[in-house]
């Protein structure tokens, strides 16, 4: 009996040993094979570099390349679209009656926030990255942080000017989707903080790619931000002086100059930053030949030919005659006013090879002129008039001896016709009613104006998808 028991005991011990040797009680490993897990990234200098490029990638590839992503520009007086079913999403804005379900505009919103998410994710890992760089790599990290702050500032600037108050996400760590709307003050404070950081940390020339952020891009953008915050809705009028100072800083750098001829500003491949160069492009996004034409070409000739981006008649009629008017517009046999191929490029569907110019030196000069006039209250400020007259003279117009800030804003409308600034200038200067009042009866008849977008509330509706998931976004 005793023998039997020991034999059993021995068996039990062997079995237990066997079982215990196989069983483990650690937490089960989570599957990250073949995936880039965020926790395991931002661990090397190469990660810093590709993480920085990640923030650019949505911006340049998709966002500004396709006019469908910024339907709100159609609310301005420099654009209208052909009427027809596939243009309704532009026409909603053209007629001041946007819907919160507008799928194109929603796309734009979605992509802008992807960039914010990418930037925040990078910035969330600053400490971790700081721990692994030294020497020259420290400069790389500082510069990269500068680029990412610049990009976050740029995108928030787009968001706040387009949709008004929005959630302010500065870290992806605990995003829930239930964040409230932030105030204009807080949003602009972050933008200014980001751009000042960028200005201080970026190098004067782009590194590792000519389209990447440099000090002047950040400073020029900062000038525009100050100008904007001095107007509606924040109206921090003290910022006009700051805007003028920042613009002056860029002008004094001597890096940029107006192209002698309008033919040198954009529209052909030779004017790309990556080609013969362009003394006027401050912020430009690269052409991307690899992109499918439909997605990439809409900003340029394609959108014109498809009837996406036509010109309102009053805008054309009020446009000062001269070489710039001839350069900017084409008129078809049927009298339809098009933006010209000289300015926006020949059609190259499927082979997009021209830069997208976001901020030209001409605009910076006009930012300076307006800010300086407003800051000094002097319509004859010499440096402001010089900046304004440089632009006018290249356009084939005569120099003026005095100018109001309104004159400068209109000058910007002509100079930047069909580009990036007109709608935001109308909001900032509270001139929507004035602009709508002079709209041509032909356009009013074809696309009558509603009143969802008004001078007092010119903000696009936040997409329904987001509002329904987060009622805090209701305005």
């Amino acid at each position: 009996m005793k023998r039997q028991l020991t034999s059993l005991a021995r068996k039990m011990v062997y079995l237990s040993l066997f079982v215990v040797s196989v069983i483990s009680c650690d937490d089960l490993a989570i599957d990250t094979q073949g995936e880039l897990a965020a926790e395991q990234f931002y661990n090397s200098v190469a990660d810093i570099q590709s993480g920085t490029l990640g923030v650019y990638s949505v911006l340049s590839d998709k966002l500004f390349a396709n006019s469908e992503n910024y339907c709100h520009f159609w609310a301005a007086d420099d654009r209208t679209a052909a009427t027809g079913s596939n243009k309704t999403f532009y026409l909603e804005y053209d007629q001041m009656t946007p819907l919160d379900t507008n799928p194109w505009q929603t796309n734009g919103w979605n992509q802008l926030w992807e960039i914010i998410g990418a930037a925040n994710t990078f910035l969330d890992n600053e400490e971790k990255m700081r721990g692994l760089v030294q020497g020259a790599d420290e400069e790389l990290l500082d510069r990269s942080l500068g680029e990412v702050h610049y990009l976050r500032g740029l995108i928030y600037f787009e968001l706040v000017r387009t949709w008004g108050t929005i959630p302010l996400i500065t870290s992806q760590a605990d995003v829930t989707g239930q964040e409230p709307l932030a105030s204009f003050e807080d949003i602009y404070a972050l933008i200014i903080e980001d751009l000042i950081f960028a200005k201080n940390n970026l190098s004067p020339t782009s590194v590792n790619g000519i389209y990447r952020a440099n000090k002047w891009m950040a400073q020029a953008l900062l000038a525009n931000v100050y100008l904007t915050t001095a107007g509606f809705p924040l109206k921090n009028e003290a910022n006009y002086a700051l805007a003028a100072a920042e613009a002056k800083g860029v002008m004094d750098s001597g890096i940029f100059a107006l192209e002698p001829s309008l033919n040198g500003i954009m529209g052909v491949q030779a004017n790309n930053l990556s080609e013969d160069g362009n003394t006027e492009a401050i912020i430009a996004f690269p052409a991307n030949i690899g992109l499918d034409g439909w997605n990439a070409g809409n900003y340029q000739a394609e959108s014109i030919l498809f009837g996406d981006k036509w010109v309102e008649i009053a805008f054309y009629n009020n446009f000062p005659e001269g070489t710039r008017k001839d350069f900017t517009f084409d008129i078809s046999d049927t009298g339809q006013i098009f933006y010209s191929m000289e300015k926006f490029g020949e059609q190259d569907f499927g082979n997009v090879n021209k830069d997208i110019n976001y901020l030209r030196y001409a605009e910076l000069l006009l930012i300076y002129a307006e800010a300086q006039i407003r800051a000094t209250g002097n319509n004859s400020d010499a440096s402001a008039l010089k900046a304004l007259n440089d632009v006018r003279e290249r356009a084939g117009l005569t120099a003026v001896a005095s100018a109001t800030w309104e004159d400068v804003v209109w000058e910007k409308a002509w100079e930047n016709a069909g580009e990036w600034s007109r709608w935001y200038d109308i909001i900032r200067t509270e001139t929507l009613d004035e602009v709508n009042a002079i709209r041509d009866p032909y356009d009013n008849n074809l696309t009558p104006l509603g009143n969802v977008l008004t001078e007092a509330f010119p903000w696009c509706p936040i997409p329904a998808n987001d509002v329904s998931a987060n009622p805090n976004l209701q305005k």
Partner: protein
Amino acid sequence: MKNKLFKNLIFPIFLCLGSVIYAQTVQGVVTDVSGPIPGANIVIKGTTTGTVTDFDGNYEIAVNTGDVLVISYIGYLTQEIKYTGQATINVLLQEDAALLEEVVVVGYGKTVKKEDLTGAVSVVGSKELEKSPLINVDQALQGRASGVQITQNSGAPGAGLKIRVRGSNSITGSNSPLVVVDGLIDVDINSVNPSDIQSISVLKDASSSAIYGNRAANGVIIITTKKGADGKGIIEFGSYISFSNPSSTIDLLSAAEFIDYANTKNISATTNPIPVFDSQQKINDFIANSVDYQDEVYRTAIAQNYQMSFRGGSEKMNYYVSGNYLDQEGLAINTNFKRYSLRSNINADLTDKLNLSTSLNLIRQEGLNNDPGFGAGLALGAVGFDKTTPIYDVNGNYNRQTLVVGGVQESVLTNPIFTARESNGTSSVNRVQANVSLNYNLLENLDFNVSGGIDYANIAVAYFNPANNDAAQITAGQNTSNSNKTQYAFRLNYDNTFNEKHNLNATAIFEERKNLSTGFNADGRGFYTASTGFDNIGLADTQTIGSGTSERTLRSAIGRATYNYDSRYLVTASIRYDESSVFIKDQGGVFSAFALGWNINNEDFFNSETVSTLRLRGGWGETGNELIGTNDALNLLRNNPWIPNGGATGSTAILPGTRLANPDLTWETTVQTNIGLDLGILNDRFNLTLEYYSKKTEDLLLTRQVPRFTGRVDQVVNAGEVENKGFDINLSGRIVQNENFSWDFSANLSSNKNKVLSLIGDETEVFPGLTVGGSIPAPSIVRVGEPIGVFYGFIYEGVNAADGNAVYAAEQDIIGDANPDFTFGFNNNMSYKGFDLNFFFQGVSGNDVFNRARSLVIGRDGRIPFGTSAELRNTWTTSNTSAPLPSLNATNTQSQSSEFIEDGSFLRLKNISLGYTLRDVNTLNAIGAESLRLYVSAQNLITITNYSGLDPEVSNGGENDRLAGVDIGALPTSKTFTLGLNLKF
């Protein structure tokens, strides 16, 4: 006379073998409760000497005193009787209880006597399965197990069926049950050759299934394959050939009618006739060359199946080895499915205490153009591609696109004959399933068991898509994936009876399972030649490659105890702790269950002549679901290459992925209560089982859209609740039973009501804009208060007689429900002498189908400009203002409307078969066989339905329950005639 001849034939054999001289002979009759058993084996133990009984069950054998006769017959318990000089030994064989469904397999090595069962378990035995030729295992369950709804979504060859046990619990996750084959957990149900199956148990309620914890919420299907038995070796051969045709076709316009209709429509839209139909001469030519594409696409499809099996054994060891070959042509031309399989089940007693059992299953499946989506394209082409466009043009080249091009929109359909013949989509699956189990008897009542298993599959898919127009490019690619599932378990089992009345069984298990999948794909677009097919992707202008891997681990500790007192009071309890690697912080889940039963008929006070069984059961339990992607909870990054130099160089650009991380993600839990009643009368000649259940699934693993300002697109969360309530009824019995004639039947009826109780937060509705087959919108939505799988859209009110426009109600609303009110089956087996007749009806009622295919063929869904359906004869015109279809010029018609919602109820004669078992010994001896069964059968011979499409059962939504009952055109079920034979040696 027969006996004598029989003896005369057998005896010389014995004499040849005869090294032993027998002194005596013994004779007798082998019977079972219903009569003599012909073909039973009688062997003298320890020798190869033996005989078989004749047609009347008689035998005679020479013996020595002291010999032991071993009497065996398949399906019966083997008996041993010692010869002590008796002149006659008559033997009454008892049916093997396991086959009689008296014993129910409940998992983890345990079987329970039916009378001791406390949970809701449906059992389908091999006898049921043998009655109709089965391609796949899931077909075997259709209509035969209550509470189990099986839907054949596609008539594509080799296509699997959708299986739902007591409704759908999950909205975005999988609702497929867990399948366990001989202890190997989580295998593809169709990797088992149906002919190898001994029995199938479906664990429906939580008290039974909770022991499987993970995924058991969707029910557990336990398949037990055949084993060898002690006795003479048996060789069986079975084969059948079948001929299939589509169960129905769509009535289309004639070529002349189509031309007339298309011209009328085109003239009203553009004022011109269609160019190819603008003269009578052209029209006549087109009519003369018109093609019936339904006739061209479909064919009489032939399937052949061959099965050979060997089984037998000795006291210490038994074996079952089988091989199977299936070659099934698809209904559509150039589609095919083949399966080769080999199974070996071997059990051996290594010592008195140590038992080894092994099971090996090798299977290869080959498919040609048998993807259900591809089949759906052909089915749609067969009815939607106009019959006036001939297959070939005058030069003998394919007319790839329709010639009927007018000013309306273009057709998206390609000539189905071109697609069917020129596409080459192949798939092959090589699978190895093996498991081994060692059982060691530690103490008299205590066993220790260690088992391990592997299920390895290599899946290779290759496709070649020809250019379907001049502008299109050829695409081709190859895609290989490997799935490697491994598992091991330790089990300690204690089983004892105290004082003859206390029966206790307790089991403790530790188990770990790991699934590792890897995939690799290479795709090409733009080949200058079609001649290299998918065999040289390097020739493509654009080449892409990809690879991926995923791994999931599940670790579990399990305890189970059952106790009964005198088979009167029954208790079952189980608890399972699962850890899953797909969750981050909260990996563990505890799933417990208990059940009680009371065998009232075993009580002393119970005294009834008629009622032989009366049992009440009740159970409660929790089960889980963790079937999300292996990294759905994680914060992942993605690469979106950016070119900082304007095209000069590319650079890796890493940014966050589209899914928002959720480290708090954890188990989805289903809580189920079940109440059951079993009633048997007249010595269990008739049996009735009633079950009522109520299930609630909480913390659903839902994919929700997140606000995009988070920078992400979606997130997997635990939210929402779904409820399923219903009942299952089973009635079976022997209507007639006498010496020559017997008639058994079984009937089942199930009803399940599914309801979404809540969604994420205060949301009342999700998932608008679901699409099927690529981009066809389905009107399916998920809404609180409604079942999963309802249709939402316009309410069609008819045609405005004044202008021919459609009339719709002002508001859109719920317009249909794809869930049936009832599913039912009715199975009958009759036998008269050597003949047996089986007929089996199956059906569903009260479900709706969205017939989007009808919208296409009446030219309304925008994919083809000119409809083809014969229904168009009755279109509104100024001279036919009471027609049911709106005018061709109607501008307001909607596809997502109740006009296309139809009643999908059907009753189907799923199987009818007539067999004859040859028992004439002379003939059998002449062919050297022990028994021979010949049968003819027909599947889906009759379908009674009001559904106007090809088949009310098909659906393009596949496994997605939100898209149930959406018919955008799918291959129909086939009507099949089969001839077969089974031989036993």
